[in-house]
Each structure stands twice: as structure tokens, then as C-alpha cells.
């Protein structure tokens, strides 16, 4: 999460986009194209990929087109893999990410990895 929060900040700057990374935690609609549909789909598939995704998938296609929707699915599914791998091996969180952790409402000392 923290590495990609940082990537999100850097890429938002590169795209002249004002993006409050606190939205990662709050779940509020992100200020990006297709943001509402993209957020709803990401949440739905991450929480339960075997649930009925029909509506969120259709909304995603409406917002981003089928090619864009496929790309969202690829990223959402890849981070299911990365999250499990990194948590499973106990990959340590670098101290350089602690300020971002605080911005997202976490105390770095509570991060056990």
C-alpha cells in the first residue's frame, strides 16, 4: 500500500493532478477518469472476487471501455498476488514510508513487518 501510495503521489505530480492520498483509506471517489467505477470495482473484487460483479463490471466498461476495464482487472488481480506474497514472506516496510503511513492514519510502530 505505502509503496503505491508513493507512486500515486509521484505520478499525480507528473500528471499535474491534485490527489489527496488519504482517499486510498477513506474510499472516497478518486479524482481520476472513471474514478467512481474504478473504485467500486476495485473494492468489490478485492473484498470478494466470487461475488456478483455484474454491475460494477458493467459500470467499469461504461466508464473506461472494455480495454480500459480489462486493464483495471489486470491491476486489481495482480495486487491480490503481490499483497499475499509480500505479507506471506514478511517483507519489511522501509522507514522511508513511515510518513506516508501516518498520512493514511497508521502509526508506523504498529506495522509489524
Amino acid at each position: 500500500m505505502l509503496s503505491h501510495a508513493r507512486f500515486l503521489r509521484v505520478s499525480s505530480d507528473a500528471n499535474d493532478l491534485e490527489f489527496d492520498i488519504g482517499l486510498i483509506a477513506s474510499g472516497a471517489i478518486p479524482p481520476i477518469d472513471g474514478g467512481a467505477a474504478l473504485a467500486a470495482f476495485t473494492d468489490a473484487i478485492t473484498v470478494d472476487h466470487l461475488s456478483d460483479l455484474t454491475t460494477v463490471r458493467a459500470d467499469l466498461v461504461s466508464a473506461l471501455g472494455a480495454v480500459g476495464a480489462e486493464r483495471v482487472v489486470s491491476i486489481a488481480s495482480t495486487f491480490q498476488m503481490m499483497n499475499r506474497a509480500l505479507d506471506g514472506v514478511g517483507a519489511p516496510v522501509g522507514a522511508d514510508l513511515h510518513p506516508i503511513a501516518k498520512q493514511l492514519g497508521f502509526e508506523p510502530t504498529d506495522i509489524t513487518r
Partner: protein
Amino acid sequence: MLSDAIIDPDPVRLTAVEQGWISLTGTGPMLTATQRHAIIGAARAAWEGADAPDVALGPAGEAAYWMAIDAGGVTSAVVGDLEARGLDRFSYLEIVGIVARLSNIDFYATGLGGSRPSLPDPDPAAPTGDVAAGAILADMWVPQVGPVRAPMVLDALPGEGNAFRAIHEPMYIPFHEIGNGAYADVLTRPQLEYVAARASYLNECFY
């Protein structure tokens, strides 16, 4: 694979998924194909609502179950307990890699509105024993080779590490673009990174 998907897979990613499924369901470094299929079954059972690990699979089944539904809740003590009950750290690492890659393939399939792939008949070959020389316990709960970098965390089992990256790169972004905040393909980098960060937040993965 994915011929029934509602959204067509990208051809490059479809190839990566198909190749990933072949390696995932084949013989591993520490586990036979039959044992790997059992891990896949245990992870899928967890996602389908099993309320506890299958005791018949022992510590390996517990590892698969928790990796599927609550990887963020696994601790050093949990891994140590599994080891004390017979699951060595290389086998544990293989299980982590299996469930992780399975997540990528299964979530991609269901996300596109397609069916999850079916298990082939298991290869009867013995485990390869392919373990990296010099892998040591250092900064993680499992043996590692070199410094901790996300795409390399499985490299104590070289074949598993290679398979991990072979699906990671086409599904995410080219590795040489990771530091490029202006990278874009059909989506912008902020769109891609929002999905990555939000999914990681929901999974309680701090890395």
C-alpha cells in the same frame, strides 16, 4: 482459457496467465503437483467460504487457507508455529507463491467475467529440489537471495521467482517503467496506482 469471459483478455496477459497456470499446476521445487493442487484447492475453498482449514492437509493447508483470506494477519509467530509442526520455510515459501499466483489468475478470470481454470491431471514427477544456493534467513520470515525487492521475494526458489515475475510484469507495468511517474498505457499511472494502492489497503498490506 477465458473463452467465456465477458471482457476479452489482453492477448499478452492471456498468454501470461496460460503459462502461469501451467507452471502453477506443475511440479514444484518442494511439493509435488498433487500437493500443489491440494494447496490450490484449499485456497479456493477458503474463498468459497470454508470457515476453517482442512485439517487433513496439516500445516500446509493452514498456510494456504490463511494466505488466501487473511495474509495480512499472518505473523512471524504463525510462520514459526507452522515450522514447528513440520512445514519447513522453503515449503512455506512455495505455498505463499502458489496462493499468490493463484490469486492473480483466479481474480483476473472472475474479474473479466470468466471461469476459473480447471486443474489438469497432476504430473507424477518428484519435486525438483530447485533451491537457490546461498539463500538465507535475514530480513523476512523466509529465505531470501539479495536485498528485499517486491518482485524478487520468492527467489530463494528460483523457478517460482521467475514464474512470479513472468506474470507480474505483463499484468502491472514493464519493470523499466516503474520509476516513471508519467508512464501511461490505456490508463494513466494515477489510475493504475490508485487501484494498486486501494486494493493493498483493503488487503491490509502495508509494503
